[in-house]
């Protein structure tokens, strides 16, 4: 089987891939910190597992995730399939590819909402903001951002527009939002873009984009095939800041309202002499 013939050479290549990090860690440990490594055996075993893990992962990628991404793209853009689901008449229009967008949206939302790194960050943000930023709300905001980003990215590939127009407009939105967002959320929002695209999602999404560019008539993989990941990292920044602005706005309005009702009740309480609090 081809798979097992590739294994030794891939293992060797991976060995050289992770060599730099081993050199760095041990180099700094011996030359700068000058302490003996604690649990040296465990660290070395850990590196060996990393080596094996990456090799298996790359093999599996080649066998499963890349082919799946490509075949989903070609199946969803297959002219026969499109004929059965199309909504326009005459030549194929961009809206006839709606299943592609729905698929991209579903992949983005599904892979992001359960991402452990994101859950940890959301809990931290909730703690620091004193509860103003909800854990689930932030997760939903990021997931929605990734989903919309991927859907928009596939739309961009279908119509073949230059991607920098989209990305640059995204940047402009981010810059404007930065000035109006709560200061605490800004670095978190900037980070959320990079954090959310996990090791499994990236190859699948890359393959989906390349597959689309190969099968949609008139697109070239080199020029149109890349860019989905960029969309998936840009849109969460926008959605996270939008969510923070929204919750701040709601918070401000609620406290204003509370102030008013408090006033009302304190007046009323003065008249009645009771102190039951029903303002919430």
């Amino acid at each position: 089987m081809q798979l097992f013939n590739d294994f030794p050479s891939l293992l060797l290549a991976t060995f050289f891939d992770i060599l730099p990090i081993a050199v760095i860690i041990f180099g700094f440990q011996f030359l700068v910190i000058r302490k003996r490594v604690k649990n040296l055996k465990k660290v070395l075993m850990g590196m060996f597992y990393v080596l094996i893990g990456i090799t298996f992962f790359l093999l599996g990628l080649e066998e499963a995730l890349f082919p799946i991404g490509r075949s989903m793209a070609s199946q969803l853009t297959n002219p026969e399939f499109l004929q059965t689901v199309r909504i326009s008449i005459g030549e194929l229009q961009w809206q006839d590819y709606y299943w592609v967008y729905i698929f991209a949206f579903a992949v983005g939302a599904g892979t992001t909402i359960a991402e452990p790194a994101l859950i940890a960050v959301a809990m931290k943000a909730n703690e620091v903001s004193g509860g103003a930023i909800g854990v689930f709300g932030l997760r939903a905001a990021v997931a929605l951002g990734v989903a919309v980003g991927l859907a928009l990215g596939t739309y961009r590939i279908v119509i073949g527009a230059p991607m920098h127009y989209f990305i640059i407009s995204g940047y402009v939105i981010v810059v404007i939002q930065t000035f109006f967002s709560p200061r605490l959320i800004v670095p978190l929002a900037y980070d959320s873009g990079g954090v959310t695209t996990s090791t499994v999602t990236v190859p699948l999404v890359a393959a989906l984009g390349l597959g689309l560019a190969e099968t949609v008539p008139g697109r070239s993989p080199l020029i149109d095939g890349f860019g989905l990941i960029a969309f998936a990292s840009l849109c969460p920044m926008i959605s996270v800041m939008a969510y923070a602005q929204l919750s701040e706005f709601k918070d401000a309005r609620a406290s204003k309202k509370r102030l008013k009702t408090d006033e009302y009740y304190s007046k009323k309480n003065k008249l009645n002499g009771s102190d039951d609090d029903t303002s919430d």
Partner: protein
Amino acid sequence: MKRSLQLFLSSLFGSLRDLLPIVLVIAFFQLFVLDQTPDNLLQIFIGLVFVVLGLTFFIFGLEQGLFPIGESMAHAFATKGSAFWLLIFAFALGFGTTVAEPALIAVADEASKVAAEAGLIEINDQAMNSYAKGLRYTVAFSVGVAITLGVLRILMNWPIHFMIMIGYVMVIVMTGFAPDEIIGIAYDSGGVTTSTITVPLVTALGIGLASSISGRNPMVDGFGLIAFASLLPIVFVLAYGMII
């Protein structure tokens, strides 16, 4: 022994959970939208098992070996007070973790295949390997620079959004001069770089640093390193595209 078994199982569970949403979405589309079953089901199944196994060993190994030592080093450098060594370490950490990032290895290989098919480089293993390597080392170098800059920002207390905006302006200006073929890959490389290995180690460095300098808020100063690491690769890969 029992603890490492537990750790292994939890990383197995973690990688299954990573893969599950993808499998569910794809299965749903195959059965209900496309109304087909893929013919190479066995190959895909074996491949997915490899992906799960690979991820499991990878995460397990990271948690056993790399993360504890990396985090304790990040903490040691953050609290030691030698700015020079801290910056050198920041660069090395960004570079080293990115070179080994599996998603980047995979996408760089794919990019070299596409470039070869499009006639941008020769179709042979050597040219493709050197293209993929060049791409990966460019990205890794830029992440190294990004983390160094980010650490410098925390030390000097520069506002993050001005630096990000300068980065955006650089990206926009360079897009105007870069060849069309590199733009997509360059923009993607920003998101690809920051995954499994880079994020935990870099976040540990940032938060450790922000909590050891008095008067800093880890929430504002600790985060933001990843943002640089997702932005600078775009600039550097655009430059790489202009040079080759």
